[in-house]
C-alpha cells in the first residue's frame, strides 16, 4: 500500500511538472532542472521495476515486454517536457478545435485564429457560407483532447485558489501542456495495445522488441514527443484498438460489432483515411456469410457496425455542417484536386528525400519484408492486411503533397502502424531463426561494414571530394564518403528508386536525392520558376557539364564548356517561356542549342555581357515529373539562371 502511494506521488509529481512547466509537490519552492526531472524519472522507474516485477507475485508480475515499454516512456517523457514543441505546424489547427469547443461551445475559430494572428491569412480571412472560418483539419483530435483541457481548467482553479497566477484564456502553457501530455498518453496507450495485438502471435518479448523498435526507429517518436499536438498518436490508438477488437472476435457479438464500428467511426473523425479499415469487418462479415452463419445475425451485426461508424463520425459531420453547411463534403476540404487518384507518386512517396517513408525511416523496410513470411504462415488471417496497406499507400501517393508537407518522414502512414508492427515482429522472428542457422552472417556484416567505411572514403579521395592526407572531422569525412557512395550507387535508403531514376535520365543515382520532388511551380516551396545556378541549393537542378559555383560580383553562376544538362520537374506539362541569363566566357558571341527531353527547341545567343535571352518551349516537349534540358554551347558560356514563365492565365 505504501509502495503504491509512493508510486502515485512520484507519478503525479512528474505529471504536474510537465503540465505546469515546473511546479513540483516534492520541491514546491524549486523548479526542477532537467537533471532533477531525470532523477525523479529514474527513481520512479526503479520503484516501478521493484513494485511490478521484483516484488510482485508471479501471477501479478508485469511481463518483460511490457516492462521494456514502461521503461521506454521515461526518456520520451523527458523529451516531451524539455525539448518537444507545442504549437507548431498543424498543431494550432487541431488545438483551436479543443479550445473553441470547450470555451465557446462551437467550431467558429475566428477568435482563435485572431489570437494566433492567422485571421489575415487568405484562406481564413473570408468566412464560409455559414459565417465560420474554414479548417481543413479533422475534429477528432480536438474533441478527444477536451478531457485534458478540462482537467487543465480544474488544475488552474486549484492553483488560482492557492494564490498562484493563472492563465484562464485556454491559450496558456498549462492548457497546451495538458493537451500535449494527453496526446502523449494516447500514443503510449496505442503502443501497449499494439503490443497486446502482437503478443498472441509472437510472444511477449519479441512483441515488446518489435513495438520498441517501431516506436523509436520510426516517425512515431517524433509525433509522440516533438510534435504531440497532431492527430497521429490518436489515430494510431484508434486503429490499434480496432485491430485488437477484431482479433478478439468483437464482430461475433452485437455489442462487439457496435464497439468496433464506434472505434472505426471515431478513428475516421481523427483521420478520414481510417475509413479504409471498413473493408476488414466487411470482409469478415462476408466470410461469415460464406461459412453459412445465420444471415439474420450477420445483418444485425452489420447494422450495428454501421450504426457505430455513423455515431463515431457524427462529430466530423456536425463540424462540417457547422463550418461548410454540409454534413458530407464531396471533396476533401483541401480542394478538389488534392487527391488525384489517377496520378500516383509511388516511388517518391516511398523513397524521395522529401519525407519518403522508406528513405527517411528504413525500419519500414523490415516491416514490409516481414509481412511476406507472416502472410505465408497464415494467409487466411494475415493476407487481408495487404489490402489496407496497398490502398493507403496508393492514396498517400495520390495526395497532392505526397511528401506530407513539413513532416518528419511520411507521417500519413500512421494508420498502418499496427500492420507494420505485425510485419516487423514477423521479420524479427525470421531474422532470429536465420541468424541462428547462419551465424556467419554477422561476420559478413562486420566485414562489409568495415570495408564500406574505408572504401567509401577511398572513393571520396578518388573523386577529389577530399585530399588523402588531410584530416577532417567525422562530419566532413562522412559527407565526402556519402557523396561518393551516392554518386556511385545511390544512397542505400533510396534504392531502388534512385537506380530507376538513374536509368531513366542517364544520370548518377545520387542526383535522385535533390531532384526528385523539387518542382518548378507545384505547391509549396517550389522554385517559383527559377533555376538559379551557382546558389548553394542548385544541386537538385544540375546533372552534369557544369563547372563549380562561381561568383562575379553579386552574380553567382556556373560555366558550361560544351554540353550540360539541367533537370527541372513539372506537375503539369504546359508551354513555357524559357529565359537564360548568360554571357559568353571568351567575349565572342556563343550559340547555345537547347533541347528538352531530347527534342530540339531552338537556339539562343550568349553575348559578351550578362543578358537575358528567351525561347519558347511548347507543351508537347514537356513531361510530367522530371524533364531534362540539354544545353550545347558553341563555345564556353556562363549561366546565371534559367527562368521559366507560364502562360498568362
Amino acid at each position, binding site marked *: 500500500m505504501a509502495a503504491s502511494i509512493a508510486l502515485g506521488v512520484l507519478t503525479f509529481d512528474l505529471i504536474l511538472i510537465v503540465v505546469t512547466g515546473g511546479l513540483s509537490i516534492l520541491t514546491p519552492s524549486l523548479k526542477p532542472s532537467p537533471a532533477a526531472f531525470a532523477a525523479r524519472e529514474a527513481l520512479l522507474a526503479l520503484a516501478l521495476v521493484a513494485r511490478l516485477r521484483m516484488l510482485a507475485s508471479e501471477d501479478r508480475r508485469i511481463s518483460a515486454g511490457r516492462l521494456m515499454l514502461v521503461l521506454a516512456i521515461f526518456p520520451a517523457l523527458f523529451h516531451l517536457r524539455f525539448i518537444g514543441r507545442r504549437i507548431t505546424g498543424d498543431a494550432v489547427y487541431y488545438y483551436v478545435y479543443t479550445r473553441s469547443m470547450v470555451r465557446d461551445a462551437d467550431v467558429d475559430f475566428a477568435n482563435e485564429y485572431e489570437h494566433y494572428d492567422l485571421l489575415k491569412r487568405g484562406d481564413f480571412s473570408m468566412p464560409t457560407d455559414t459565417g465560420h472560418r474554414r479548417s481543413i483539419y479533422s475534429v477528432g483530435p480536438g474533441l478527444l483532447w477536451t478531457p485534458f483541457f478540462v482537467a487543465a481548467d480544474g488544475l488552474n482553479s486549484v492553483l488560482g485558489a492557492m494564490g498562484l497566477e493563472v492563465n484562464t484564456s485556454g491559450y496558456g502553457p498549462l492548457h497546451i501542456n495538458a493537451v500535449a501530455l494527453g496526446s502523449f498518453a494516447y500514443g503510449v496507450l496505442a503502443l501497449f495495445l499494439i503490443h497486446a495485438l502482437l503478443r498472441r502471435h509472437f510472444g511477449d518479448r519479441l512483441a515488446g522488441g518489435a513495438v520498441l523498435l517501431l516506436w523509436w526507429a520510426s516517425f512515431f517518436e*517524433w509525433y509522440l514527443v516533438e510534435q504531440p499536438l497532431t492527430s497521429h498518436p490518436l489515430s494510431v490508438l484508434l486503429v490499434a484498438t480496432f485491430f485488437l477488437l477484431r482479433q478478439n472476435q468483437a464482430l461475433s457479438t452485437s455489442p462487439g460489432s457496435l464497439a468496433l464500428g464506434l472505434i472505426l467511426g471515431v478513428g475516421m473523425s481523427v483521420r478520414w483515411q481510417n475509413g479504409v479499415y471498413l473493408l476488414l469487418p466487411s470482409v469478415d462479415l462476408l466470410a461469415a456469410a460464406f461459412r453459412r452463419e445465420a444471415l439474420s445475425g450477420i445483418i444485425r451485426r452489420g447494422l450495428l457496425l454501421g450504426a457505430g461508424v455513423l455515431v463515431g463520425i457524427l462529430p466530423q459531420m456536425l463540424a462540417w455542417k457547422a463550418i461548410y453547411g454540409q454534413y458530407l463534403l464531396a471533396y476533401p476540404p483541401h480542394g478538389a484536386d488534392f487527391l488525384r487518384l489517377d496520378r500516383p507518386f509511388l516511388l517518391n512517396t516511398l523513397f524521395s*528525400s522529401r519525407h519518403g517513408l522508406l528513405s527517411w525511416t528504413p525500419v519500414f523496410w523490415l516491416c514490409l519484408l516481414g509481412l511476406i513470411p507472416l502472410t505465408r504462415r497464415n494467409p487466411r488471417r494475415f493476407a487481408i492486411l495487404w489490402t489496407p496497406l496497398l490502398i493507403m499507400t496508393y492514396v498517400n501517393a495520390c495526395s497532392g503533397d505526397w511528401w506530407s*508537407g513539413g513532416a518528419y518522414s511520411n507521417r500519413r502512414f500512421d494508420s498502418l502502424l499496427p500492420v507494420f508492427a505485425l510485419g516487423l515482429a514477423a521479420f524479427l522472428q525470421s531474422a532470429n531463426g536465420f*541468424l541462428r542457422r547462419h551465424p*556467419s552472417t554477422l561476420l559478413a556484416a562486420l566485414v562489409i561494414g568495415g570495408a564500406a567505411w574505408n572504401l567509401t572514403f577511398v572513393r571520396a579521395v578518388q573523386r577529389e571530394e577530399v585530399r*588523402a*592526407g588531410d584530416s577532417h572531422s567525422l562530419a566532413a569525412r562522412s559527407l565526402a*564518403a556519402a557523396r561518393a557512395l551516392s554518386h556511385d550507387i545511390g*544512397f542505400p535508403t533510396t534504392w531502388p528508386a534512385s537506380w530507376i531514376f538513374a536509368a531513366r535520365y542517364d544520370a548518377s543515382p545520387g542526383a535522385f536525392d535533390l531532384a526528385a520532388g523539387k518542382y518548378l511551380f507545384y505547391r509549396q516551396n517550389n522554385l517559383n520558376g527559377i533555376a538559379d545556378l551557382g546558389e548553394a541549393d542548385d544541386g537538385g537542378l544540375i546533372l552534369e557539364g557544369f563547372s563549380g559555383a562561381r561568383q562575379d560580383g553579386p552574380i553567382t553562376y556556373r560555366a558550361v564548356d560544351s554540353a550540360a544538362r539541367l533537370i527541372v520537374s513539372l506537375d503539369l506539362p504546359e508551354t513555357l517561356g524559357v529565359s537564360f541569363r548568360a554571357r559568353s566566357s571568351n567575349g565572342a558571341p556563343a550559340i547555345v542549342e537547347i533541347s528538352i527531353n531530347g527534342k530540339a527547341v531552338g537556339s539562343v545567343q550568349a553575348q559578351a555581357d550578362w543578358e537575358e535571352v528567351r525561347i519558347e518551349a511548347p507543351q508537347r516537349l514537356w513531361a510530367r515529373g522530371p524533364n531534362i534540358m540539354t544545353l550545347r554551347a558553341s563555345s564556353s558560356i556562363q549561366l546565371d539562371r534559367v527562368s521559366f514563365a507560364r502562360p498568362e492565365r
Partner: protein
Amino acid sequence: MTSVPFAGPAAASSLPGLGLFAGSLAAYLWLVRSQAPLPVRMALAALLALGPSMVEFFRAAWWSLSFHSLFVSLFGAHGLLYGAPLLWAGFVGLISLRRENPGLVRLALAALVPGALALLLSTDQLAITNRAATWIPFLLPGMAQCFEKARAFAARRPERVIAGAGGLLVLWNLLFMEQYRLRLLPSDDTVSFAQVTSNSAGLLSRAVGTPFAWPLNWIFAWRFDTSPDRWDAVADRRLFTDKRNAVATIEFGDDASPFAPDTPLLLEGFGDRRTCERGWCRDVEGEGRLLLPLQDAGRSDLTIRLRARGQGVLRFSLDETSTSVTELTEALSEVALRVPGRFVRAGVNVLSLSVAGGGRATLDRLTLERVPSPSSAR
C-alpha cells in the same frame, strides 16, 4: 584482414605498402610453421615489426618520441584503429586465445608490442600504414578467434545481435530527428542524404566523440575544454606539411566548404566567415582560442604573425607562455609573437587571443614561421 588494404586512401594507393604487407604475411606464416625455438621466432618477429620504423628513423630529417605520436597513429583520423576498426578484433581475440594457444599469443605479442611502441617515434615521414604493415599480420589469430567467438555468440543469442542492429536503426532515426529539429535540414524540401549522413555524424561525434577514436577523443576534449569531435580533424594534422616547410599559413574564412581547413582549429570566440577588404576573414569577439597542431617542436623558435585589424589592444599568447600585446589598426596589418622553441609543445598547442575591453578583432591570416633559435645558431 581486408581492413589493411582498405586502411585508408594512402594504403590503397601505396603499392610498396601493400607489398610490405604481403611480404610480412608470408613471413608471419613461415614463423608460425617454423620448427625453430620460440625465442628465436619471437626475436625475428620483433625485428620484422621494428624494421620499417628503423628504416624510417634513419631516413628521417628529424625525429622525436612522444605518446601523442603513438595515440594519433592508432586513434587519429589516419590512425590504424580509426581507419580499420576491425583490427580491434585482433587485439581482443588475443586475450581469449592466451590459454588455448599461448605460443601463438607470445609470438604475436613479440611483434605487436615493439611494433606498437615504435609508433612513439614521430618523424617527418608520414608512413604509419607502412610502419604497421609488418606487424598487423600477427593480429590474424586474434582476429580469427574473435570472429569465431562472435559467430558462436550469434548462433547462441541471435536476438542480441538483432537488438544491436535495431539499435543502429534507432540511432539513425534519433540523429535524423535531432537534425530535423535543429533545422539543419529544410523542413519541406528535398534533402541530400549525404548531408543527412554528415549532420548525423557531426551530432554524434560532437556529443560522444567518434567511437573509433575512443577514449582518446574524450581525453582530448577534457584537456582542451572542447567537444570530442575536434580530435578527428586536429589530432594528427601537421600545420608544417613536411620538413622543407618553414612557413605554415592559416587563412581565416577563405574556404566556405565543409572541408575548410581553418574551421576545426577554431575553438570558442570566433565568428562566421565574413568579407574584409578584398578577402575573407573571421572576427574574434572579446576572447578566442585556436588550436595549433605542431610536430617537430622545440627544434626552432616559432614566429606567429597575425594579420588583423580592429580597435583596441590585442593580446595573444601560445599556451599561456609567450605573449604579445599590440594595438590594432583600422587597416589589416601584421602583429607578431616570437615563441622560444622550448615553449612549443609537440602536438596540439593553444593560441589564446583577447581584445581589451571585449572589443572585436578581424583576423585575415595566421602565419607560423620556424626560425633558428639563437641557441641553435650558436
